């Protein structure tokens, strides 16, 4: 396997893992199929557009991204999503509507035209013998470290345990004094913020326009279908299979066969193994 292919695999898998993380949290923890997930990626990608429109310095991109996404997610959670916990099909329809609404709002503000964002790091650097975009290398390393930190937090922190308790038995969790409303809102906003962060990070490398979110929703969904819900391991397996298949077949054969294989895999899993490879124990 050529070094470039290895790096491409690392790039595709790490970015898809970051994109799918929020969908996995919201679906796995709250049983909300968030069809507006891609739109949070899109809003995150517009953060650098907002800062440059307002003439703000570049370091404000991250706070602007997180504040915007968190605000939108919080408002939607309080007004719509909180009524739909545990109602998977209703949540799917409602969040699809939210997705359309968010696209239209962004279109009203910024128009339909494409936006472009400069990467903070430009040029290529030599890694394992090949020239590879420096920004991509930084992102791969950043996401890898981020996931190590997140999985450590997920196994150790009280917050993660409380969320598990809330999901496992909401009545009992409330009885022992957990504020489930706050926990749910927190988990939803956190999941959406990871999507926004993914959008911000990807912004210099992709097209930016109001409709861009759909791509990310579909690929994240495929990854969750294959990997299984409710665990970071499942997420890792799912994104590796989906991103890996597309990248590997795209390189050795053609993009058409890569995409065909991803679709076939997803259909087979939905049909034969709907819980995915590594689903949670419940």
């Amino acid at each position, binding site marked *: 396997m050529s070094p470039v292919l290895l790096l*491409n695999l690392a790039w595709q898998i790490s970015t898809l893992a970051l994109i799918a993380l929020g969908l996995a949290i919201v679906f796995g923890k709250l049983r909300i199929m968030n069809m507006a997930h891609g739109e949070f990626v899109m809003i995150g990608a517009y953060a650098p557009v907002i800062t440059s429109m307002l003439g703000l310095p570049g370091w404000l991109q991250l706070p602007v991204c997180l504040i915007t996404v968190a605000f939108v997610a919080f408002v939607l959670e309080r007004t719509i999503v909180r009524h739909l916990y545990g109602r998977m099909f209703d949540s799917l329809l409602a969040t699809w509507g939210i997705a359309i609404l968010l696209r239209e709002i962004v279109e009203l503000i910024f128009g339909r035209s494409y936006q*472009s964002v400069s990467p903070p790091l430009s040029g290529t650097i030599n890694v394992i013998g090949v020239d590879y975009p420096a920004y*991509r290398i930084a992102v791969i390393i950043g996401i890898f470290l981020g996931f190590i930190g997140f999985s450590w937090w997920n196994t150790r922190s009280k917050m993660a345990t409380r969320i598990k308790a809330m999901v496992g038995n909401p009545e009992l969790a409330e009885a022992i004094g957990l504020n489930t409303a706050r926990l749910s809102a927190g988990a939803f906003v956190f999941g959406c913020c990871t999507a926004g962060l993914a959008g911000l990070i990807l912004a*210099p490398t992709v097209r930016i326009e109001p409709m861009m979110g759909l791509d990310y929703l579909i690929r994240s969904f495929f990854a969750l279908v294959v990997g299984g819900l409710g665990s970071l391991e499942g997420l890792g397996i799912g994104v590796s299979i989906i991103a890996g298949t597309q*990248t590997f077949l*795209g390189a050795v054969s053609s993009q058409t066969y890569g995409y065909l294989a991803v679709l076939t895999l997803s259909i087979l899993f939905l049909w034969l193994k709907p819980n995915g490879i590594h689903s949670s124990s419940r």
Partner: protein
Amino acid sequence: MLKKTINLLSSTAFVIALGAISASAETKIGVLVPDSGPGGLFGPSTRNSAALAAKQINASGGINGEQIELLFADVGVPPAEAAQAALRLWKGQGAEAFVGMHDSAVREALIGRFNGQVPYVYTPVYEGNSCADGLYITGETPSQQLEPVIPFLAEKEGVSKWYLIGHDYNWPRDTNALAKGYIDDSGGEVVGEEYVPLTVSEFDSSLQRIKESGADAVLITLVGGGSVGFNISFAGFGLDEQAIRLGTLIEENTLAGIGADNANRLYSSSGYFSSIQTDAAASFATDYYTAFGSDAPALNGLGQSAYEGLILLAALANKAGSLDVAAMDAAAEGTTWSTPRGDNTMIGRHMAQTIYLADGSSGAFSVVASFDSVPSSEACSN
């Protein structure tokens, strides 16, 4: 008394004005634009350009003495629905001619529906090979965009190894089939050819193949968002040092999405850029932004093509003396007229026109060469 007189005078003037409007019957023209779907990005600039054309046609006497009125319909929908929308304008609201800026699938559906009974001008860049009674085409075809441009770039940039990449449908494939001949004639060779599905949004493996092929020029027939994503990654991998890029559908919006950082040595070939430096083009752009505001949707070759279409329709109908298809078909060949694009001639129902080659390196197009009166290799017999 004075007040009364003024009232009387003004109401008389009002009646006279009303009479003037109702006295001149209006010819209704159907304008088919994509308001929704993937082409929706071009809806607003297309509508504006059409409205500007109508204003100018009416100012110079209309079509055969009658003022024109535009009726718009959204054709950014599946072909069958688009044909229904056109039919409503035609039979329901009395449109006597059509100008369309939409994809080829919709065009084929419309040709079937119109069946040569109503004049129809098709305006966007397209793959060629469409002939029908009453169909007139202003859009650039691949031969026009490439025949003069490939030898020019081969000489100017000293490139000879071409890699062809496009989305997997007929426009890119037909374009590349012709491109191979022009590349051959210019002494170059094709080192790779690749088609990607419209659903694919990452191009890493294609970029690796381009790198390994040793190409020094890439002909891009990807469309819309795919083209934006490809070009961003292309520059990200530093391939802009290795190869020039030439696109035949990279207009102002696509270039804005690619961004100045990623547009080094990116060329585009088209019949129109908003930065064309001729008097006619400059005054068109001034009229456009005066009429629709300085923050109006950016001018681009696709949107502007609706203007071309209406001006051609007026020229043909005035020459033929009516909007009758048989009369217009008979009059079409050899019609000449001028627009912001330059001096045009109707040859084989296609528009021989000036082709511009622009460099997008700075993030905005600057025209580096223009080729006058380039005919299309497409020709329909009359």
